[in-house]
């Protein structure tokens, strides 16, 4: 059993901030990991009527335990229908999905995502990662994308080492020019800040910062020049004790997704 009263860790903070992006009654496409926690948290709190969709084909399950994988029975528990993979992504193209959540290993100043490899040489990477999975598909098709991950200068480089998924590409109208649909990435969420994109240049901009994090600290954690919003930078709303208890007691009671890995 987890201590329900210990202070929130960065992963729990992240799950809460993501959950706040979800509006009730919406159809939400969920990737593996923290987005699963956020989706289920939203459903148990402010958005009980959302419908969750997963790329293995599961959708609209009756709530159960945390899925162990996006293919877990918990993603299709008594679902009215289970989609084939091609049809599942097609729901994003056809406009049935309101918002999607993706993870990243790197995200750049235009919200392009890399989950392929780290290093400058494709043939001799420092490390090879998973590849796209459904990451590219959701980024290409979904009306509103929210990108979720940890923040260091290496994870927030000026240019990603491999463009797995297009965000705003090279800024301006370049995403649309490339033929992609949807409104592109709306936000990037890290434990230290929430970022959006300048409406014209599409460069990443601070939207709000975790209490205690200044613009200067956020800049130091970033490998490119962050844009500053006009006026005071608001604090990101912190997780309430009530939501923290729900995460620990109901959503992820064993802490599979929301305990910090031992260093």
């Amino acid at each position: 059993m987890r201590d329900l009263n210990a202070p929130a860790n960065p992963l729990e903070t992240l799950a809460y901030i993501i959950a706040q992006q979800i509006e009730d009654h919406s159809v939400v496409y969920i990737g593996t990991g923290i987005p699963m926690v956020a989706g289920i948290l939203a459903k148990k709190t402010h958005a009980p009527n959302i419908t969750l969709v997963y790329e293995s084909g599961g959708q609209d399950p009756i709530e159960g335990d945390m899925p162990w994988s996006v293919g877990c029975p918990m993603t299709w528990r008594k679902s009215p229908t289970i989609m084939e993979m091609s049809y599942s992504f097609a729901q994003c193209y056809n406009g049935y999905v309101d918002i999607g959540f993706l993870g990243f290993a790197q995200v750049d100043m235009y919200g392009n995502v890399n989950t392929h490899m780290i290093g400058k040489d494709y043939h001799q990477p420092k490390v090879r990662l998973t590849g796209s999975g459904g990451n590219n598909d959701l980024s290409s098709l979904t009306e509103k994308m929210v990108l979720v991950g940890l923040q260091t200068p290496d994870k927030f480089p000026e240019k990603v080492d491999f463009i797995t998924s297009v965000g705003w590409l090279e800024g301006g109208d370049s995403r649309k020019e490339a033929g992609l649909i949807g409104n592109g990435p709306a936000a990037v969420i890290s434990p230290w800040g929430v970022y959006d994109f300048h409406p014209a240049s599409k460069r990443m901009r601070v939207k709000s910062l975790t209490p205690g994090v200044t613009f200067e600290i956020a800049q130091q954690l970033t490998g490119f020049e962050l844009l500053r919003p006009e006026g005071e930078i608001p604090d990101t709303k912190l997780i309430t004790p009530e939501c923290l208890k729900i995460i620990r007691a109901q959503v992820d009671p064993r802490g599979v997704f929301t305990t910090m890995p031992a260093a």
Partner: protein
Amino acid sequence: MAEYLYNEEALENLRIKDTSVLDRLVDFESAREAHLKKEHAKKDKRMPLDEAIATFVKDGDVITDGGFSYVRTAHQAFYEIIRQGKKNLQMIGAPNTNQSFFITYGLVTHSHSSYTGAEMRGIDKVYDRALKAGRITILSEWSHGGVAQGFKAAQLGVPGLLSKQMLGSDLVRYNPYLKVIQNPLKAVKDPAVFVPALYPDVSIIHCHAADKYGNAYIYGPAVNDLAVAAAARKLIITAEEIVPENDIRYNKHGQIIPFFYADAVVEMPFGALPGSMPGCYYWPRQWWEKCMRFGGSSEENNRIFCDEWILGTKNQYEFIEKLGGARWIAEARRQTKAAEGDNEDIDFSYDEYTLTHDPGRYY
């Protein structure tokens, strides 16, 4: 003159000189020929697993991953391919996680890459090491949706389709099969990606029930398998149970692979182990944690792990004994029924495998 005009930029980026290695996957004519020459009569196609693999999986074939990584995947048949030591295989799938077992033994030398890993259990270090050592060559980079559309195009019976996925990304610069073209009906600029229909040589699909002719029933996520079954030149069905044809006709409504796609039918209870099988058994979760964490930690440990479980077992029954025998079966069945809402909620907590703690049990 070459038969296919591959994406030149991708050939250069991937350093592919001899493009003949790419042809089989998109060679519709030979796939249609293979489908025409298949046994179309309703005949008993049952045979043992070793015979099915020996007969239908050939060196150099393009094989497919199936199910969803570790959900209803024909793992036990994959292990038989490894035991028989087939050579120079290509592998494609969405996901393509299980290529790493074949790469470990040098069977799969060419990858059509989409996703390789075990989600939250971590990145696949076997693939990482093999790439750096040059033991695996990437022939194409895909998104899951791109592969799914390629198989679906084959099932639909079309040369390919136009996709709005992968545009603008490096996937189209590292995939010789993809070409960005203008939507021909639009007056304004409207780029789309041409995704060709994909025809793998051989697919092994694990199903819940099949009759002796090869009508095969899938419960739970079919993922890409209905499309793959229609596309593959050769199809091996492995099934949890063999049932009378009338059971399929009267009781097994939903996702059915027609018998005339199948070349072989293999009775394979627990054929998805160590993966999970919807309605039948839940994962041995610690097995995958050990595979990714212990096996991932070094090539030597990976071999120790795979030798113990893959070469060290002759069949699924020996595998089950290692997992905990009848006790494991009972726990795995209880867990999967609870997970699917067919039984009371149970406590899903388990003793996780970590590098410093081996619980020595798999449920």
